[in-house]
């Protein structure tokens, strides 16, 4: 290990111009995603985050390496995990001198972590970074009720017997029931599925269209596994070698038999089922980011460049936009800033929170009126044909451990563009190969990004 402080910009060199310096994706690693209460039921966020970091370290031979920063997050986090990422780094094969911090932006945590670290690399503040995310719905934190908490805190401050008795006497039997985390929007009290059911109805997305998208997710993910696509993206964990939710033998008939779970009280027909919605999942993912120089100095490959990113938010509580529609607003701004259209992308990766989330976004971008009035565009943004959308499957098949989805998407996307670029070698080698990534999140948030083959 060099004696100089890790990842400090070379003091002898001239300051790096942000325009010249790129942030690149070297590779990624994730655990196979598992269903809640499944094989990872006894694994904590720290167990999984440590394992996914160790798998990444093993893949790229980074044992004892000082990485510039590791940033990671979890959506469902125990209060004791206030330093989750740093603790995981200390338990990993990385150098204990590797700094770390936690990030949290609901389901966009993983992608936002990539964006933030990539920006630091572009600025010259970091030479290398690991963006990671983890979530367990099996080992979710369970809190005590507010009344019990207040009473206990009062008790701990009490000095006299009288004060102590008074504090204890304030506890009512109903206060003793534990409070598990709820997947509901604090401002509306509706679950994410019920919110999406409203949007699905608003855009008139059919059950058949949703099931077709879900089926494609399963068949494409299974085919990608069979082709060995994930051999250098996934490391098995606790006996699980593929995503537990994956149903390689799924069919429209089987999906069609499932009863609707969301929107059953709406006046419109309920179309959202367990088959076209993501299940609660456990898992972790990590992405190795670097400057070109760091990757070259470590003789590591460079798959893709992190080009740009855009975040949007919608007023789902009072406005007319669906909870998960923010990416619809972010993408046009991202494209305009980079002078691109939807046709300039070889691949589009849209996180499948629900099949209808993806379909609503596609419908909105194809809608002249919506694009004119809400997005301020001259007309429809355009359409995305299905053979470049989620080509190796997405969350409906893989599962969706909230903060781990962004890392899964970025590593997959980077490998896709790198492989396409390699295929073009000799024929159309200079053509840029790009992928658009979009992740919706609770709170009406949406983070989007562009990667380009390096």
């Amino acid at each position, binding site marked *: 290990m060099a004696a100089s402080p890790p990842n400090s910009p070379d003091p002898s060199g001239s300051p790096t111009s942000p325009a010249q310096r790129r942030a690149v994706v070297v590779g990624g690693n994730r655990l196979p995603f598992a269903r809640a209460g499944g094989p990872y039921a006894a694994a904590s966020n720290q167990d999984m985050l440590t394992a996914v970091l160790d*798998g990444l370290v093993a893949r790229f031979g980074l044992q004892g390496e000082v990485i510039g920063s590791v940033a990671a997050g979890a959506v469902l986090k125990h209060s004791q995990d206030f330093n989750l990422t740093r603790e995981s780094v200390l338990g990993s094969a990385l150098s204990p001198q590797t700094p770390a911090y936690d990030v949290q932006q609901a389901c966009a945590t993983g992608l936002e972590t990539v964006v933030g670290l990539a920006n630091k690399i572009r600025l010259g503040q970091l030479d290398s970074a690991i963006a990671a995310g983890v979530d367990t719905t099996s080992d979710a934190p369970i809190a005590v009720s507010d009344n019990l908490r207040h009473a206990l805190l009062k008790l701990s401050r009490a000095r006299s017997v009288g004060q102590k008795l008074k504090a204890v006497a304030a506890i009512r039997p109903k206060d003793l029931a534990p409070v598990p985390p709820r997947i509901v929007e604090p401002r509306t009290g509706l679950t994410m599925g019920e919110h999406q059911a409203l949007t699905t109805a608003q855009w008139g997305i059919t059950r058949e269209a949703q099931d077709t998208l879900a089926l494609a997710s399963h068949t494409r993910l299974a085919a990608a596994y069979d082709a060995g696509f994930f*051999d*250098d993206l996934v*490391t*098995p964990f*606790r006996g699980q070698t593929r995503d537990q939710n994956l149903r390689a033998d799924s069919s429209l008939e089987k999906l069609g038999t499932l009863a609707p779970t969301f929107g059953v009280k709406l006046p419109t027909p309920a179309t959202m089922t367990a088959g076209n919605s993501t299940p609660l999942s456990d898992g972790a993912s990590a992405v190795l980011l670097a400057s070109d120089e760091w990757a070259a100095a470590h003789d590591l490959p460079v798959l893709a460049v992190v080009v740009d990113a855009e975040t949007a938010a919608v007023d789902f509580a009072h406005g007319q936009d669906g909870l998960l529609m923010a990416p619809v607003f972010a993408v046009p701004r991202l494209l305009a800033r980079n002078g691109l259209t939807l046709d300039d992308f070889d691949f589009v990766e849209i996180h499948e929170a629900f099949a209808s989330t993806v379909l609503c976004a596609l419908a909105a971008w194809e809608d002249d009126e919506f694009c004119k009035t809400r997005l301020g565009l001259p007309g429809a943004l355009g359409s995305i044909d299905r053979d470049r959308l989620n080509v190796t499957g997405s969350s409906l098949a893989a599962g969706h451990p909230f903060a781990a989805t962004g890392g899964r998407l970025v590593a997959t996307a980077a490998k896709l563009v790198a492989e396409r670029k390699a295929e073009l070698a000799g024929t159309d080698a200079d053509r840029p190969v790009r992928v658009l990534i979009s992740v919706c999140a609770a709170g009406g948030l949406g983070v989007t990004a562009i990667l380009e083959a390096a």
Partner: protein
Amino acid sequence: MTDTYLNLVNSGFTKKMAKQLGLPRPAPLVRFQAGQPLVRGPVLVLAAASSGTDADAVGKQLLGWGLDVRRHASAGDTFGAVVLVLTAIAHPDELAEPVLATGATLRSLARGARVVTLSRVATADDAPAVAAARHGVDGLLRSLAKELRGGATGNGVQLADGVGVDAPSALGALRFFLSARSAYVDGQLLTVDTTAGTLPEDWDRPLAGRVAVVTGAARGIGAAIAETLARDGATVIAVDVPAAGEALAKVANKIRGTALQLDVTAPDAGDRLLELALRRYGSLDIVVHNAGILRDKLLVNMTPEKWAAVIAVNIAAQLRINEQLLVSGEFTRAPRIVSLASTSGIAGNRGQTNYGASKSGVIGMVRATAPLLTAFGGTANAVAPGFIETDMTAKIPFASREIARRASSLQQGGQPVDVAEAVAFLASPQAGGVVGRVLRVCGQNLVGA
């Protein structure tokens, strides 16, 4: 897994009982540890009258290694090793004097002592008496090894004509057999074919600066090989099927190597190994074909799938990977291929026609592959493990397992590291003169000797 019987007969009351009952009493073997003395006591060098010059050269070399070398036994000596130099014998009559002198020392050998013969390979071109004398060493050594107790072993180095006792591989093999690295190698004669190979700068890190690939590295013998090569200084790329990735990552992180999740039967496996090694470490020097599977069935019940799977993984994949490495033009820096055979491939095993064919195939493969590498200072050899204590052998039913353990001169199963030590030796620069051979690591198993 733990050998309970071995522990019982070596401790406390049960030790005394076993002694009185005359039960077999396997001795705990001493394994290699950095910093331990090469040999556990003085080394006695004995020689046939005709072989005195070679014996002097060997003695000088042993002195150079810092050993306490004696040419005569005196009363009260406890020897750590006896080296018997028979390189120039021309008639079986010449054996009597040095062999009987060796016999006189056997009662006073240290625990874990070594008897090593140095002789020459008998060929059809030799005069009949010369060939008889040379080949006689074979039966002598194997019988002597069966008489040794207390974890002592007997092995021989057989030199081809034109290869001196000071050839790198002659010295390398002699040192390997003297050291604790060969703890579970017993009753074996290793041939040194040529004067190729180089002595390492540092005998404790002979693989420094070398880049190695180990297949099937997630568990058992493969994991031990990866760890042993790394201990000897190599940079290791640990390979196993994607499904074994969790254990593989742990191995890679332990030895500061790289984990590659790759099925060796992939059509481009060799190219992918080479690409990773060149890009990440600039070279590929050592390939250890350890990945192997079992699909046991009596031939009468054998299915096409079980037959094909074993052939595909255990031998066809190795052939394809070797071919891709050879045609690449990049596998030229004194390359080493070490392949895992099996005593089942030598002696055969009921229910293992597929496995036996694949492992015997490995023996044929290295014999024909090694000559293709010698132009680059390279070689290919095989290691044939006997009964090794692994997850695989732990599944053998109790009675069969106990029989398999005791059916060797060392009366116990070997450890994965014993196989790994033999692989590390054949992968080393000092093994360059061993061309297309098979080294058994079996404690002199009674099967297939």
